[in-house]
């Protein structure tokens, strides 16, 4: 009746039980709070059923913050383990538990923090920057979000019910096959990744079509903001890379569920094929993450230098080259798997080539600041830290790109330090900068700048302290994913410093969280009184109110050049009458599909087949029903538009 699910699945060790209790208590408190404030109806009508890109963007970020708590807790547990486990007879965490933690840490951070943050910011900003009212397929957008959340929930549920995978964030076979991982762990991972992966593919299609077809009149491709270009390149990568992931993880699942022999050690299977295919996805994936972060810096740096971006055209070409090259380097993730020197050399050279367009971009940002009037706001501070950390980590990447070097440090802590420098120093800091930069646009008030700077310094110092020792440890021979080591190696002091770095980052993150709540509490004092453009930005999102009305722009703008708000001769002004505005109608179907997907994933993880099949039928039925309906709209009448616009003007006058 319940497949493999028994009461034993709810029994965990002390640390995990505490974590689960913490999660449950928080969940219960949240439900109690919402009930007390009588906000269920509001939550349903305004958020759960919405197809508005702005609200979906905010929801993505909320889920990201929750998943970040889990992923960061995993990281701290690992740091504590490694700092204390020098020949320890009673290690803090058991071996199996440690393996689950590093697997969950990687999967959570890549798929549910980095990807989620990226889609969240893109949702918030892209339609505004191109002068559109929404994305191309608003319903599909909502489905993508709920699929993303369903995948995240599966990882959180795995904390409480049963065990997560022990085979790392990419589940390499044969360890991840049914013979060596017979329990539910890898299945949790697989369903989580597949469900959210399909959501990502849908988002890729959605944003690609949005950017290609929904730009406002006059905005040719070479007049788009760089953030839009970076998202366009990233979405092209999503579209062509994620199907590889879907097929490959699908084949792993077929091996596990149906006894097939794609990647098994016997039966003619070839585990090396998994490595090849998964990294053919995996390498473009990291470029999917970094390109939008580059785009954010291209928005932040000119604004806070009071100078146009240097070398727009070369920035665009650099991103296109990076996007294409990202498909030509994947073997560098398994130089040591045994390919011949010619093969390794080809991929090594291609990998090094990527540094060239990346360098072009970094110099362009620096040239933008040269002779500009630089404001050292916290987004700019994130940028400076990015230049330092990303460049250093990038250079270690060039080191790793040489196969002979890689043979020494592959899968050591040197590698771990490299990619954390790229992902935290590049991706995460870019998203932090964007979050701060665009926060007043979405909420109408500012994040407390002082607290933000304190958080920044903690992250900056913490990042260096947490990962510089890891470069050294890698050279000293420490491999990744170690849960204990001999004290005679002399590694412990470095692990302790790394743990200290982790603690400082913890304080940085804590200040960010508290700062967010503090800023919300103090929102009346921190209100944006400039009428929507506090930084004197140059792109279209700053041309509408803060927060934007549901229709984004009362009149779709026309542009005739790059950086329209800094235009010397903008298009001629003409007064127009307000028109009726048609927007897509909200619907609960996306939420239902996401929920059913989550239950389906859970059901098949535990082999509760009847439940899984029932969910599948439900999903199919919902899709057919939704796609058989006439497109539904809601109309905001011209009169309502006028009232909304006037309320903004009135609000600004009283400020």
């Amino acid at each position, binding site marked *: 009746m319940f497949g493999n699910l028994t009461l034993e699945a709810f029994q965990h060790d002390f640390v995990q039980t505490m974590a689960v209790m913490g999660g449950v208590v928080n969940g219960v408190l949240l439900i109690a709070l919402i009930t007390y404030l009588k906000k269920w109806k509001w939550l349903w009508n305004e958020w759960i059923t919405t197809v508005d890109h702005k609200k979906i963007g905010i929801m993505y970020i909320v889920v990201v913050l929750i998943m970040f708590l889990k992923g960061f807790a995993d990281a701290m547990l690992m740091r504590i383990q490694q700092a204390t486990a020098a020949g320890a007879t009673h290690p803090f965490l058991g071996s199996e538990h440690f393996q689950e933690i590093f697997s969950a840490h990687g999967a959570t951070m890549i798929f549910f923090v980095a990807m989620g943050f990226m889609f969240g910011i893109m949702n918030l900003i892209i339609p505004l920057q191109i002068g*559109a*009212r*929404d994305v*191309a397929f608003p319903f599909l957008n909502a489905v993508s979000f709920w699929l993303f959340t369903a995948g995240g929930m599966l990882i959180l549920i795995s904390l409480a019910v049963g065990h997560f995978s022990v085979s790392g964030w990419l589940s390499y076979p044969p360890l991840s096959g049914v013979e060596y991982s017979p329990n539910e762990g890898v299945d949790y991972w697989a369903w989580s990744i597949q469900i959210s992966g399909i959501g990502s593919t849908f988002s890729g299609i959605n944003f690609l079509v949005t950017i*290609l*077809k929904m730009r406002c009149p006059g905005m040719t491709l070479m007049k788009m903001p760089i953030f839009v270009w970076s998202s366009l390149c990233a979405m*092209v990568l999503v579209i*062509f890379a994620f199907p*590889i992931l879907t097929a490959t993880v699908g084949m792993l699942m077929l091996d596990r569920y149906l006894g097939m022999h794609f990647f098994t050690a016997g039966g003619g299977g*070839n585990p*090396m*094929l998994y490595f*090849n*295919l998964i990294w*053919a996805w995996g390498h473009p994936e990291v470029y999917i993450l970094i390109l939008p972060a580059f785009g954010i810096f291209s928005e932040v740096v000119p604004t806070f230098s009071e100078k146009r971006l240097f070398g727009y055209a070369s920035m665009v070409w650099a991103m296109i080259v990076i996007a*294409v090259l990202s*498909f*030509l380097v*994947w*073997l560098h993730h398994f130089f040591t*798997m*045994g*390919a*011949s020197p*010619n*093969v390794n050399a080809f991929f090594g050279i291609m990998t090094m080539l990527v540094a060239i367009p990346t360098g072009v971009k970094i110099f362009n940002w620096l040239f933008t600041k040269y002779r500009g009037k630089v404001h050292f706001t916290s987004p700019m501070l994130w940028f400076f830290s990015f230049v330092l950390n990303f460049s250093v980590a990038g250079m270690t990447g060039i080191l790793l790109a040489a196969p002979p070097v890689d043979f020494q440090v592959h899968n050591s802590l040197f590698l771990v330090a490299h990619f954390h420098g790229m992902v935290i120093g590049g991706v995460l800091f870019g998203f932090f900068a964007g979050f701060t930069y665009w926060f007043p646009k979405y909420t109408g008030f500012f994040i407390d700048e002082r607290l933000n700077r304190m958080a920044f310094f903690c992250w900056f110092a913490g990042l260096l302290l947490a990962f510089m020792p890891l470069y050294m440890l890698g050279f000293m021979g420490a491999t990744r994913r170690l849960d204990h080591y001999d004290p005679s190696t002399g590694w412990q002091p470095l692990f302790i410093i790394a743990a200290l770095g982790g603690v400082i980052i913890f304080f940085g993150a804590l200040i960010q969280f508290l700062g967010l709540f503090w800023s919300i509490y103090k929102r009346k004092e921190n209100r944006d009184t400039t009428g929507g453009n506090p930084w004197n930005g140059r792109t279209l999102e700053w041309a509408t109110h803060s927060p934007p009305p549901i229709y984004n722009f009362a009149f779709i703008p026309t542009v005739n050049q790059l950086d329209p708000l800094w235009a010397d001769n903008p298009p001629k002004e003409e007064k127009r009458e307000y028109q009726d505005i*048609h*927007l*897509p109608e909200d619907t609960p179907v996306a939420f239902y599909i996401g929920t059913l997907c989550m239950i389906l994933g859970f059901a098949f993880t535990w082999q509760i087949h009847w439940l899984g099949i029932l969910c599948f039928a439900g999903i199919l039925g919902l899709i057919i029903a939704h796609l058989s309906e006439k*497109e539904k709209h809601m109309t905001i009448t011209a009169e309502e538009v006028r009232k909304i616009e006037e309320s903004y003007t009135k609000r600004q006058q009283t400020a």
Partner: protein
Amino acid sequence: MSEEISLNEEKKLWHGTYLSYGIGFFVSLIFTSISFLLVAFQVFPPEVLIYTVASFALFQAVVQLIFFLHLGQEGKPHWETFIFFFMLLILLIIAVGSLWVMNDLNERMMPKHMTTTHHD
């Protein structure tokens, strides 16, 4: 936001004709049948057969892309065509790359029949 257009305007945006389907059908029928007959009756030696049949398949695919899927007939800017060619580029990169890599790996993993070590 997407606009509603009339049924007649929608019809103008689709580019199929009896002629296009006719041509596509006959060409596909002929090439499929020839491929089948060539292989079923082993008309050529294996190597020749492989290249012949493969090129017939590619040709038929191009025909179906143009005459059934109307590639290239969408209005300017030709986004669908552009995206198709980019997909083709990526497809070739990952297919050729994967086959090269896997072939190379398999060769080096297979037991060698030589007694001396061999460096390639």
